[in-house]
């Protein structure tokens, strides 16, 4: 099938403002949007810039706005979209070139929630024990691939980029509810700050955007509840 890709282009060395490029590509309905982008880059316009690596939805490189929704280009098939496809960079992060955005502000929020196990007890000679149920408690949020699709779909983040954003909260959740972790107190304090969880207005864009189908809004709600519970 013939597909028209309408791609938001911007090269800071050349362009004063972003513009739309139109490309016609011959696709199979089962092709990925990433395959179509590759076709454009390889055979029509080599200067098109985007990130990609694994091509099967696991490395988190190619989150972008496709027909108005954040998705991974490699996990979205042409047949889901029809023959007119609009592709833009993620919103809310500075554009470096074309579909490539500056991830540093996103990663900074991620780093701010102490995204590592906190436990200073001397470890046992073998593994720390954890029951199947304790492990299950935080399973959903371990799936996060830091693709930024959720955070950059959130109106609260667009409005105030200092909002820590859903991805960082998901990553915090992964530790807060891990029975082996002792850092919850401090993490919850960070998340209780003005730029923390209370900016979330339950809009659900994040949950819809997550390519890993993580229940993001629910995870945020659980963190909010935990803060309130500890406040007593």
């Amino acid at each position, binding site marked *: 099938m013939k597909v028209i890709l309408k791609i938001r282009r911007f*090269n800071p*060395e*050349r362009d004063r403002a972003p513009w739309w490029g139109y490309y016609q590509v011959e696709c199979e309905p*089962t092709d*990925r949007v990433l395959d179509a982008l590759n076709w454009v*880059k*390889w*055979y029509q*316009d*080599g*200067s098109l*810039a*985007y*990130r*990609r*690596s*694994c*091509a*099967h*939805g*696991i*490395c*988190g*490189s190619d989150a972008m706005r496709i027909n108005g929704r954040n998705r991974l280009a490699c996990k979205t*098939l042409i047949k889901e979209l029809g023959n007119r496809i609009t592709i833009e960079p993620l919103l809310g992060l500075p554009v*470096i*070139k074309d579909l*490539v955005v*500056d*991830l540093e502000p996103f*990663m900074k929020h991620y*780093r701010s929630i*102490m*995204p*590592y*196990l906190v*436990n200073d007890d001397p*470890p046992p*000679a*073998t*593994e*720390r*024990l*954890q*029951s*199947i149920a*304790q*492990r299950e408690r*935080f*399973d959903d949020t*371990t*799936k996060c*691939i*830091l693709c930024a699709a959720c955070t950059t779909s959130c109106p609260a983040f667009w409005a105030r980029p200092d909002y820590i954003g859903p991805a960082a909260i998901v990553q915090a959740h*992964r*530790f807060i509810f*891990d029975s*082996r*972790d002792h850092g919850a107190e401090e993490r919850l304090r960070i998340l209780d700050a003005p730029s923390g969880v209370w900016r979330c207005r339950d809009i659900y864009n994040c949950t819809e955007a997550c390519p890993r*189908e993580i229940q993001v809004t629910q995870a945020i709600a659980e963190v909010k509840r935990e803060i309130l519970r500890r406040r007593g």
Partner: protein
Amino acid sequence: MEGDVVLHKYDVVIVGAGGAGLMAALYASRSVRVAVLSKMWPVRSHTGTAQGGIGAALGNHEEDHPEWHVFDTIKGSDYLADQDAVRVLCYEAVELVYELEHMGLPFDRTPSGRIAQRPFGGHTNNVTKQPVRRACHAADRTGHMILQTLYQQCIKQRVTFFDEFQVLDVILNEGIACGLVALEITTGQLHIFQARAVVFATGGWGKIWQITSNAHSFTGDGAAIVLRRGIPLEDMEFFQFHPTGIYKMGILITEGARGEGGVLINGRGDRFMERYAPTMKDLASRDVISRAIYLEIREGRGVEGKDYVYLDIRPETINRYFELDGKKSPDGTPRRITADEIKTRLPDITDFVRTYLGIDPLNQPIPVQPTAHYAMGGIPTDLDGRALKNENNEALPGLYAAGEVACVSVHGANRLGTNSLVDILVFGRRSGLDAVRYCRQTDFTKLPARADEPVRETLESLRSRPLGDERIADIRAEMQRVMMDYVGVFREATGIEKAIRALRELQERYQRVGIQDKSMCYNTDLLEAWELGCLLELAEVTAVAALARTESRGCHTREDHPQRDDKNWLKHSLAFRTEQGIELRYKPVTILNYPPQERVY
């Protein structure tokens, strides 16, 4: 800043932020100043795609011993692995898996709260010869959890990262490695990193082949860079094809699927593996299964006569074969599995199959074919990750390699599933530690003048060529097709010779390739062109080494030389790049207590 290059100075500079690079960074940065350079954000590294598990003889479900792991690995390697290295691998695996757990890795758990383990190809109880549960897993995203856990620890330890910096050259001065040249992708700026020690942890090069499980970014940069600087590459003829890639796409379906009981079925509905490997069946070594699939297809027993077979993970199929095989759970009851259990243990691959094939693997079998997967060969190193420059095992001072880009050799002619994740941790750590020891004894070596000149010239030449009729994409596709046809699972002399001629022609055409993007900022047109240069060189080395090895061993199957030939070929190849082309030399295999035997599964 000197001229238009930015200078940096660190004790140790690590190239690559996958499992091997991060592990080296964690250990080295406890003692000296370390920088990690990665062409992608660290969490995008290939380690994150590993699915099935990491092997360690913890014995959490049933009896197991590191020594059994040693034997299985050596047998899996078709006796080409160095046995001293395998010993290190399998014994250190146990403490490293515990260390990962202590770092917070969310392994799945047994009912008693210990790390859960599943069976995997080629891992056995050495007494009963039956599959043993040795692969420690976190669902089917074990690699994702390893990569994230190590990155988390690096954040905690405040390791310095240069993200989206692509290394294009290693700087040597009088035979000592003393730095790197890297391109900052977002700006096009060149940087020189001066270092006492340099560690390459850049991963593999599956993109040489058409059907591959490997990412677009897996282009063998590190291996090609050192080859160009006169360091040999070891055992390049050995590249593993994993039996179960999604048909036509190559996306991997983990061996863990067969570990959970999945079976391979041909076009006639037969479970054909019992004819090729009566004991281990669908959990035989990967080379054995990939060959079996090709043979079934060749005999017209592919599905609908085409070039694929089915991987069946429907619970009714699994349970039928559990019953036929008399499989027992560790508690002695007959082994059974439910649809829900399959979904919890293999959520990602269930999702891949649904997304890309539009079918539910719990109701329909999955069409699969062998997919180019893993480089057993690479930069030769000793047990501490030191790169070796010749067949006498002399180290090149200051240069280290670890992970898939390295060849210690623990995988020999065929890697066992779960052993790469062990390899990256064990030898990542060892190279990090040894780099520190080395730093303590040596000062910085002076950088040669204008060390960035060769890179600058290469990039200028690529940038300045007009966009003629030679395209990167055409040359790459042609290389991938040639390698698939002639240097894949089955090989023979005339085919390989054809491939070599075709590759040399492609290299000539590559000299005329033009690029469209002339800008400095995020120029992936330029970098794809540069990466294609790496792939072409590695493809040629692979083919040349494959032509020379006139025997069949592990994944290297020569139809014109179907037997293993220990008398002439129990040795590692070393490929050097010289003025006259590729030169092959050889060095012996280290054999300790397991002399070569016939290999049956």
